[in-house]
Each structure stands twice: as C-alpha cells, then as structure tokens.
C-alpha cells in the first residue's frame, strides 16, 4: 500500500517538471535533468539524512563530550581523543582489529574465489552444492555464535574430537588467547564465504569461454590461464569484493555479533575488536562520549581506506574498458 502511494507521489513529482518545461521553455534540458535527479534522490537521501546521517553526526559529535549515560553532557574538547591514545586497551583493540581485517579481507577473497572456481563447472547437482556453501549466510549470527561456541569447547567439542584424530587435539580454540582470534576468523570466513562465492561466480561466468579455448590451443596449462585470463578479467569483481569486504570487516555486524556471543572479547582481550570495545565502553560502562570518539576514529580510518580504493578504481567504476 505504501509502495503504491509512494510510487504515485514520485511519478507525479517527476512528471511535473516535464509538464512545466513544455510550458516554460526557459527551463532548459539541463535543468530538467537536474530537477529530475534531485527528485529521484529525494526519498532515499531524505531518509538517509534523517535516520542515518543525523544520528551519525550526533553520535560522532558526542566524542567531544563527557556523557554520563544518564542525560548529562559536559564539553570535553579533545579529552576523549587524548584518553584514547593513552588507553592500552584501545591500542590493543586496534591491533586486534588490524590483524582481523588483514586476515579476513584476503581470506574472503581467496575462499570466495576458490569456491567459485570449484562450483563453476555445471556438474550434476551443482545447484545443491552452491546452496550448501551459501547456507551459513541464511542463519542469524547469534545462533551461528552459539553453535560454534559449542563445537569449539575444550576436550569434548566436535572440533577437538575431529582434530585429535589427526593428532591435533587438546587445543582450546576459544580459551587460548593465541588461538581465539583465529577461531573467530575461521567462523567469520565460514559464514561470509558463500556470499563472495556468488559474486565471484557471476564474475567468472562473464569471462567468454573462447579465451580459455584459445589459451588451451596455445598450450597454456590451467595455472597459466588462471593467471593470464581469469585474474586480469576478474579485476572489476575483485575491486568490488575488496571494497565490500573491507567495509564489512571493519564495520560489519558479524564482527560484533560473533564476539558478543562467542568470547565477550576474551580470553584476556584477545578478540576485543574495535566494534566490541566501542559497544563495551558505551553500553556496559556508560562512557558514550569515549565510545563516540573511538567510533569517529574508526570512521576516519575507513574513509581513508575506501578513499584509496575509490581513487584506484576511478570513483567506483570498476569497468576498465
């Protein structure tokens, strides 16, 4: 119902300038285009401004205040930012996050591409295999966290039982600070890889078969045709995957949700990702101002990183032809 009325309104709105243009010829083609563009953008931009932009500005500007969490605010200038630099937990958390991102982004790239190559050939039941590989994506992160927490438990957990068969038993995947981040990364990749597989699969299927046929005639092996044909032609897809997985690794919900359910940032702060630490400071310690300062910092780092990717890809246009 709301869709219909919204559609009508937009139709009317976009139709109006045209009608007016025919009447008043001084509204040039260029201006009509401008007006149309603004009207097309209106619903989403307005919504984003109100429901994301405004809260974002409010939330981030809290970084300059001491906020009690109970309605009192005192201006603190750069106090929260100074505190940040002197907070060993923040610096730790930054390190954990950097490690997480540096493993996750390539990890998703490799696993996504690997799986896509694996499921590219249309063998029997391929649809079923693809569906199975995507399946973790369908389940809520809270349940995913609970499941893996059990599978990773000391001694009797499924992971340990299986690994002990190859002589690697007795490890505490979520209880040993040297392993916990890896366990978290493993679960995260397992959860997200199906999505990137689909993206890569679509990219792979766009590459004309003739290229490979020609390469084979030239005597190129599978490795060489992967290097000389697949990789270069996947460039647009690759940039897209890198950009999306970078944003997801730093600000995506999976980082927070899985840590929240599986480790609470432990053991010994070894999985204390920035998103979790920010949440902890805000909601468990009522330090909303400090949390906001850290969040702003994170946004600026991400802006920088994605800015670089945008520059490299000419404003997000991934087609290079």
């Amino acid at each position, binding site marked *: 119902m709301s869709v219909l009325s919204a559609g009508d309104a937009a139709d009317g709105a976009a139709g109006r300038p045209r009608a007016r243009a025919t009447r008043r010829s001084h509204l040039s083609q260029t201006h009509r285009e401008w007006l149309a563009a603004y009207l097309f953008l209106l619903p989403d931009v307005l*919504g984003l401004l109100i429901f994301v932009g405004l809260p974002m500005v409010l939330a981030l500007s809290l970084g300059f205040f001491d906020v009690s969490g109970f309605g009192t605010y005192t201006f603190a200038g750069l106090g929260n930012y100074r505190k940040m630099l002197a907070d060993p937990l923040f610096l730790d958390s930054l390190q954990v996050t950097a490690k997480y991102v540096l493993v996750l982004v390539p990890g998703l790239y490799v696993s996504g591409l690997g799986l896509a190559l694996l499921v590219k050939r249309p063998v029997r039941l391929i649809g079923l295999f693809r569906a199975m*590989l995507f399946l973790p994506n369908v389940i809520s992160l809270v349940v995913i966290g609970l499941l893996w927490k059990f599978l990773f438990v000391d001694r009797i957990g499924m992971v340990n039982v299986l690994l002990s068969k190859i002589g690697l038993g007795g490890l505490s995947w979520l209880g040993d600070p040297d392993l916990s981040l890896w366990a978290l990364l493993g679960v995260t990749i*397992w959860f997200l890889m199906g999505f990137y597989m689909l993206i890569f699969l679509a990219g792979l299927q766009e590459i004309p078969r003739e290229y490979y046929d020609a390469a084979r005639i030239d005597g190129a092996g599978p490795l060489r045709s992967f290097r000389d044909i697949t990789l270069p032609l996947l460039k647009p897809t690759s940039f897209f995957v890198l950009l999306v997985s970078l944003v997801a690794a730093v600000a995506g919900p999976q980082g927070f949700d899985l840590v929240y359910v599986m480790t609470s940032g432990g053991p010994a702060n070894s999985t204390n990702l920035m998103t979790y630490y920010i949440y902890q400071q805000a909601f468990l310690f009522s330090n909303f101002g400090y949390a906001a300062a850290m969040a702003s910092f994170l946004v600026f780092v991400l802006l920088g990183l994605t800015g670089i990717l945008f520059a490299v890809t000419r404003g997000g246009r991934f087609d290079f032809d």
Partner: protein
Amino acid sequence: MTSTDIGGAQFGMRAAGEGRSGGTLLIAALILISSLTVFPLIWMVSSAFKTGTEVYTLRIVPEVPTLDNFRYVFTQLPFARYMFNSFFVSATVTVVALFFHSMAAYALARLHFPGRELIFRLIFSTLLVSLPVILVPLFVLVRSMGMLNTYAGLIIPAIFNAFGIFLLRQFYLGIPQELEEAAILDGAGYWRVYANIILPLSRPILAALAVFFFLANWNSFLWPLTITSDPDLWVVQTGIASFQQQYASAQNYIMAASVVVAMPTMLLFFIFQRQLVESIKTSGFK
C-alpha cells in the same frame, strides 16, 4: 517471477550444454567441502530434536528424538505471531527499500547534476558506521517521532541503507547509454525512462538484492529489541533471545526456535539460488 524463470531456464540450458567433463576429483572435493560447510548446521537441526541435557552431547542423531522443543516454542510463546511480524517487517522493508534505492541509484548513475559525486560519497560514507554506534541517537529520534512500539518504528529506519544504492548504482553504470538517449529524444521524461527502461532491466538484480535484504532484516535483532517493549511487536530474533533464561540457557529450545526461524530463509534460498547466481551475473553486480 517470469523473468527469473527464464533466467533459470537459460541457466539450465547452458549447464546441459557445457557437458559433464567434471572429474571425479572435482565432485569429491565438492562433496567434502560442502558437507563440511553444512555440518555445523546439521548439528543445529539435530539439537532441535534433543532433550535439554542431550543437547550438550556430540551425538548427531538424537538418542530419543523429541518434538517437545518445537511444541514448547509454539506454545510457550506466541511464536507464530513473531514470525508474522518478522515476515511483515522484512517484506515491507525489502520492497520499499528496493524501490527507493533503484530510484536514487538511477539518478546517481545515469543523470548529470551538480553535486553528484559529493552526494554519492556522502551516501557511501554512511556505510562506515555500524548500528551500535548510532543506536542511542537513533532511538531518541524514533521516539520523538512517536514511533516506539510501532511497525513504523521497525520498518522505516531499516529502509535506508546505502548498501543497496551502492550496488544498484554499480549496475546502472553498466547499462548502455543508447537505450535511454533514444527514449529521451522521443520526448520521454526521466520518470518514463526509469519506469519503462531502467526498472525492467533491473529485475534480475532487484531479485538478488531482495533475497539479501530479506535475509538481513529477517535476522536483525538489535534494532527490533531496542524499540519494542510490546510483546505483540516482537520479531523472531527477540523470541529466540527470550528462551535464554537467567539460570538455564536452554539451548534445545533456542535451536528448535532457530530451525523454525531458518526454515523460510533456507527455503527462499533453495528456490531462488539459480536465479540468484544468474541475476548477479546478468546484472553485472560485481
């Protein structure tokens, strides 16, 4: 519906055409990796049929399979009501969001106007902040609009998400210019170009995005929990959380509820997976 069916058929034809040169090694690897991937979820399903103590054992097939957990889930809490709420909210968000996003993306990709790059950058930058960071101000805002404990509060803030705009813009950048130019020369307005040319072309990618949007909203937890206290408005994820009691985590109920909750989304994916891949491909969403 029709277009995705055709997509599926094309896909099937090509699949047949490419022959079955896949070696046994490939098949073996496929079976191994996909079963490993699914294995934890099998445990989830089996747990749903276990008793409260057996749920913490490694047995995959329950010793005494029981339906009690499912009975509990549906009798102790109005779970059907939660499922309706989740469905209603997710479907509405998906439909409205796709419509708004495609309009915005069309303007950003195909029209020329001052501030285009700036607006795009600003929209993109909203992706960099996660929900917990803006939770409090958003809550204040939604409350001051009188939308606490309403469907509107569940739906409206969830509609606006830059990710969809970003993906659709990518797609629209790849559509050949000539189609629209011809239409514009014919005197068609921008709305008609959008409605008659762009929108039909975007059907496949809209289908793919619909699946992702629906999934994301179906599984969302934090926002619904924060703004609803009225149990009539609870969604499935809030319901699952409430099976966790102060002194007993009751994993068997949680897993049974999770299986029930995952059913529609699994089904959705199984039915649409072919179309999904096809639409990602044809849409050039990459």
